[in-house]
């Protein structure tokens, strides 16, 4: 039987401090995303009209929405790594991104005859889109999870979900440098699906890997 007093003496002997989650988690999550994303862009190529798309009020959302998701997801994952935190604002931002995406989708649908909806959603590149965003996103998710294990979350599933949404968002923003499918009905649907998939894998993995 180990007495609690002995345990305390034991713990006090261990003077090696724990390692902080920041800034390593940023490197571990964004590093793999940047590397795999760059490789993909070298293979597929950056869209030639990239500069013009930045000034279009519609296509700019291909970066704004994922960008907001990155900020909110990472913020949430970091906040949750402190056990006592109650990060409600970050959840609101994630909800806002979803609502904005749905709004963009709906506005586009209103201006398009219903017979064209299916074609608009389907686009030409569903498979490459889903595979690229989720593939790149997963590298960031698991890189980040390895470091996030140092944290002390009391909600491991939610922590993994947040990190997955953030990683998926970063992957989508990179992929958008190649992707020239600018119909919101396409990119909201499939970018969203891929980001959500990385988020769900994050939630499942987090429940196992982030448990204190």
């Amino acid at each position, binding site marked *: 039987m180990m007495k*609690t007093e002995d345990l305390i003496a034991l713990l006090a002997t261990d003077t090696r401090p724990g390692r902080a989650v920041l800034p390593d988690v940023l490197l571990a999550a964004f590093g793999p995303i940047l590397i795999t994303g760059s490789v993909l862009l070298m293979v597929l190529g950056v869209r030639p009209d990239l500069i013009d798309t930045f000034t279009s009020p519609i296509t700019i959302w291909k970066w704004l929405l994922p960008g907001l998701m990155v900020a909110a997801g990472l913020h949430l994952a970091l906040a949750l790594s402190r056990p006592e935190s109650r990060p409600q604002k970050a959840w609101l931002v994630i909800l806002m991104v979803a609502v904005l995406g749905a709004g963009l989708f709906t506005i586009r649908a209103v201006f398009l005859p219903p017979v064209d909806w299916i074609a608009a959603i389907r686009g030409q590149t569903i498979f490459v889109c889903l595979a690229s965003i989720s593939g790149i996103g997963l590298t960031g998710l698991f890189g980040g999870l390895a470091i996030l294990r140092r944290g002390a979350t009391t909600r491991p599933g939610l922590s993994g979900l947040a990190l997955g949404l953030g990683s998926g968002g970063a992957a989508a923003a990179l992929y958008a440098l190649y992707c020239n499918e600018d119909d919101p009905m396409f990119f909201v649907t499939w970018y969203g699906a891929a980001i959500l998939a990385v988020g769900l894998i994050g939630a499942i993995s987090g429940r196992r890997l982030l448990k204190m």
Partner: protein
Amino acid sequence: MTAVRVTNRCDGRIAGSNMTENRDDWAHLLRAANRGDTPAYAAFLAALAPVLRGIVRARAGGIDAALREDIVQEVLLTVHLKRHTWAEDRPVRPWVYAITRYKIVDALRRNGRDITLPVEDFADIIPAEAGTDPFAARDTERMLDQLDDRSRNILRAVAYEGTKLADLGSRFGLSQGAARVALHRAMGKLSALRRTGQ
């Protein structure tokens, strides 16, 4: 090791009137601990233990004393391994309580199948810690047996024989830095074992 032991074992008093005083104390001690003040750290943990014991008894009073002490040890170990997640400008208590709550829920869930007694009804007739040493938990010893030899020997040497960190290296043929790392890793392994409930 010359630890300053703050052995206040009056659970009730600590949770009650001394609370305000302790709140500042804890942050003070833990800040000092983060700067390498080992006696302050031992004092912090020693002050923490009776409070944890009180919380666990209040929240999980139906389970037996040895199991409750397991939970207390589990919280202490987690507080130790995760102490870097406490931000020095924040109060200590909410941080400790969040970990404690999580560990109580976790333990109750894990032992849920074993504890089928309607504890509310039997609470009155369960003898209050009679015959058990409330400071000893049964789990840790069983967990130690499952560790690799070196981790186990290191933890035993420190916990039972009071081996100092400075002597740990020479005893196990390690540099002092390597001994620190080995001790830290051994605790991580112990924690992982407890977590999986093996």
